[in-house]
């Protein structure tokens, strides 16, 4: 989640960068790298590709920040770059559904891609949580690209519908329709599991 203080801080960093203080960019990277990684990962479900896209995104932001006019927030602008890079990658991969492996609990050879299990849960409860999360990830995979983007921006990144529309490059009603369909689909798939939980 981004507060208005974060927005102000990021715009301040942008201003400093544009005045020639290149070190301000590092602050922007530290501010946004974790949540931006989570966002890209939720779209493509592959740790290595997500890191590549994020790095390329920061690189493009570094190159384009001089031309940034502040008409939108830095986060909105940066997420638009990430969305475009993600779409490019998906296009190159032929939109293969296998790309969305969502291997959150599988470590790669460097031990980098892993989620942190909730240690406070009992093992049976933890297993149940894990199953629900897997189903949620599968449901996310079944969404169209636009629906997944809209859903992830709205609920995982906590953006307003207007910001989602701006990032996706569509109107607010269109963004609302994408979000509505995504939520309904996930609710349909998650129905039996949510009953068990409640």
């Amino acid at each position, binding site marked *: 989640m981004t507060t208005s203080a974060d927005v102000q801080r990021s715009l301040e960093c942008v201003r400093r960068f544009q005045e020639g203080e290149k070190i301000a960019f590092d602050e922007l990277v530290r501010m946004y790298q974790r949540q931006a990684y989570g966002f890209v990962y939720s779209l493509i479900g592959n*740790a290595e590709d997500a890191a590549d896209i994020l790095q390329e995104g920061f*690189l*493009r932001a570094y190159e384009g920040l001089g031309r940034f006019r502040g008409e939108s927030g830095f986060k909105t602008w940066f997420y638009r770059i990430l969305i475009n890079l993600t779409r490019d990658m998906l296009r190159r991969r032929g939109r293969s559904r296998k790309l969305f492996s969502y291997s959150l609990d599988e470590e790669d050879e460097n031990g980098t891609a892993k*989620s942190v299990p909730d240690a406070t849960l009992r093992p049976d409860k933890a297993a149940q949580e894990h199953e629900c999360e897997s189903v*949620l990830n599968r449901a996310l995979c079944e969404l169209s690209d636009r629906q997944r983007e809209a859903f992830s921006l709205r609920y*995982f990144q906590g953006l307003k519908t207007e910001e989602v529309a701006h990032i996706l490059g569509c109107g607010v009603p269109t963004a609302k329709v994408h979000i509505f369909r995504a939520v309904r689909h996930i609710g349909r798939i*998650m129905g039996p599991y949510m009953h068990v939980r409640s």
Partner: protein
Amino acid sequence: MGVCFFAKRKLLDFAEGDISERQAVQVRVHLESCPVCRGRLAEIRRGLQAVGLHREAQMSDDFWKKFDAGLQKKIFERECGRLPRTGRRFIWVAPMWRPALIALPILVIMFAVATHLRVFSPAAREEALVRDAAWLMDEAADEQGALSSDDDITADIEILYFADPSTFRENG
């Protein structure tokens, strides 16, 4: 149907509590009489509840150290010009000229098709045949005219020769 459409559009806002009190009352009234929308609302509520299950990908500090080092290296290389700059595929064409760049081959193709149709269409071919026939006839007529004038000259020469052969001997 109209009411159902309104309710469908407002269901997500209703479930999130992001709706005016007046519209909320309208949706509630509609929900009492519409089992389909009640089912939709239940799905939406379960979908929103499921959002809470999502866990952000947690990466180790080591991962972020490597990430930062890689990014710094790439920025440095790009600054030094060792890496090609991104987003510069059309560097030789200014953005305002890109539509013209696309339109140009289309115009060339249209011109070629138009020319082909003009030259090779049945009407054009017939016209060309008529034109050729007229030209041949003109040529034949001219040739005929030239031949007759040659005959006249030969006849005149013969008359002159027989009238005064010495003129031809003096002049060679």
